[in-house]
């Protein structure tokens, strides 16, 4: 059954990718990219990667698509005719693809439990992480403890993206904040958004703190919380949102999240362990792991929330600016 679903989803993905190549309407391209992202998230669910699916759905289909639409609003929707010859790219792609297909020929079979991937490092995560870390979600255990340094790097990447977007676009606060913006004419949307947004934030908190037991964690929670604010900004206009969470405050929050994460590492260094060694955080190693993971997930959540919202602000303030002119 899983194989059948897998096959159907892969076929849909292939068609979507082909359609994206040939479409000239960039708006449609972005919509199809959203679908592509959704579909790949379905594949991830089908292949048991629920945490990944969670992230891909909220990031790929959510944040990326919204940002792409924001860019399109500023750059125009139509792709002009391509004067490049498509022969050379096709050649490059064929060669690369052929190399990869050649590489697949010695691959271990799909899904075989005897594959080297499942034999060497991973068994310890599966068999011992429930005792060593004490959490049912192995992905969270590996992400936040065994490979916590990767995750710190990931948070720093997000932070770097915020620096990049701020340096490039900046966030302009308009003087005349009574400017027409938001979806003023859609009264129904206003009512519904008011009902939905608090629940979304509540859900984000649930994802943040339930990530140890089910799919979710700081990153997904940050994105969902940012999505709630984005919804607010889309419906009620940017100036209203800026009044709730100011750009300066978000910058401060983004830095704070990174520092919180690194701070856990420093504390464990002071207590005599290695960087990010949570065992030293409390007398009982398992409790130490719990404290460590909760705090760093919080740091991740705070940074991701602040950065995603800042990036959205930057794009949105550009769009409103050009709209006025």
């Amino acid at each position, binding site marked *: 059954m899983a194989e059948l679903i897998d096959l159907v989803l892969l076929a*849909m993905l292939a068609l979507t990718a082909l359609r994206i190549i040939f479409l000239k309407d960039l*708006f449609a391209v972005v*919509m199809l990219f959203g679908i592509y992202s959704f579909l790949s998230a*379905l594949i991830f669910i089908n292949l048991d990667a629920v945490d990944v699916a*969670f992230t891909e759905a909220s990031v790929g289909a959510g944040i990326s*698509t919204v940002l792409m639409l924001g860019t399109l609003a500023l750059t125009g929707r139509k792709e002009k005719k391509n004067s490049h010859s498509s022969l050379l790219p096709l050649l490059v792609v064929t060669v690369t693809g052929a190399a990869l297909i050649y590489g697949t020929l010695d691959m271990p079979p799909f899904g075989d439990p005897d594959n080297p991937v499942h034999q060497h490092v991973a068994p310890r995560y599966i068999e011992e992480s429930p005792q060593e870390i004490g959490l049912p979600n192995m992905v969270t255990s590996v992400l936040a403890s065994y490979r916590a340094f990767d995750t710190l790097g990931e948070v720093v990447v997000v932070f770097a993206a915020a620096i990049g977007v701020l340096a490039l676009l900046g966030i302009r606060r308009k003087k005349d904040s009574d400017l027409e913006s938001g*979806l003023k004419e859609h009264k129904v949307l206003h009512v519904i958004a008011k009902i939905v947004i608090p629940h979304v934030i509540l859900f984000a908190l649930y*994802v943040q703190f339930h990530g140890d037991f089910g799919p979710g964690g700081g990153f997904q929670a940050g994105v*969902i919380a940012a999505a709630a604010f984005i919804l607010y900004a889309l419906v009620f206009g940017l100036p209203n949102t800026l009044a709730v969470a100011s750009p300066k405050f978000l910058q401060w929050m983004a830095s704070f999240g990174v520092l919180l994460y690194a701070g856990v590492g420093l504390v464990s260094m002071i207590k005599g362990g290695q960087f990010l060694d949570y065992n030293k955080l409390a007398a009982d190693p398992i409790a130490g792991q719990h404290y460590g993971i909760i705090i760093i997930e919080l740091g991740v959540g705070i940074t991701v929330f602040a950065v995603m919202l800042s990036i959205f602000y930057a794009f949105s303030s550009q769009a409103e600016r*050009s709209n006025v002119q």
Partner: protein
Amino acid sequence: MTEVLAAACIAILVVMAIALARAFKAPTVYDRILGVNMFGTKTVLFIAAVGFLMGRPDFLDIAIVYALINFIGMVAVLRFFEYTAPAE
């Protein structure tokens, strides 16, 4: 019961495929959005059903996220049309 669930999953997949076809080729841009929206809502149902089919229904969180993102995506699209003329 599993058979019914499996059949339902497949059927939802088919509906998704039809919606996808609408998103690929549509007479107006609004039809395209309609197709995308329908695809999104059916995906939510699909995830819910597949969770029960695989015996791990605790993944409904993902369905919630899908529903949420689908809605925000729709609002973003509408907002997008405030800036650009939607003429095809």
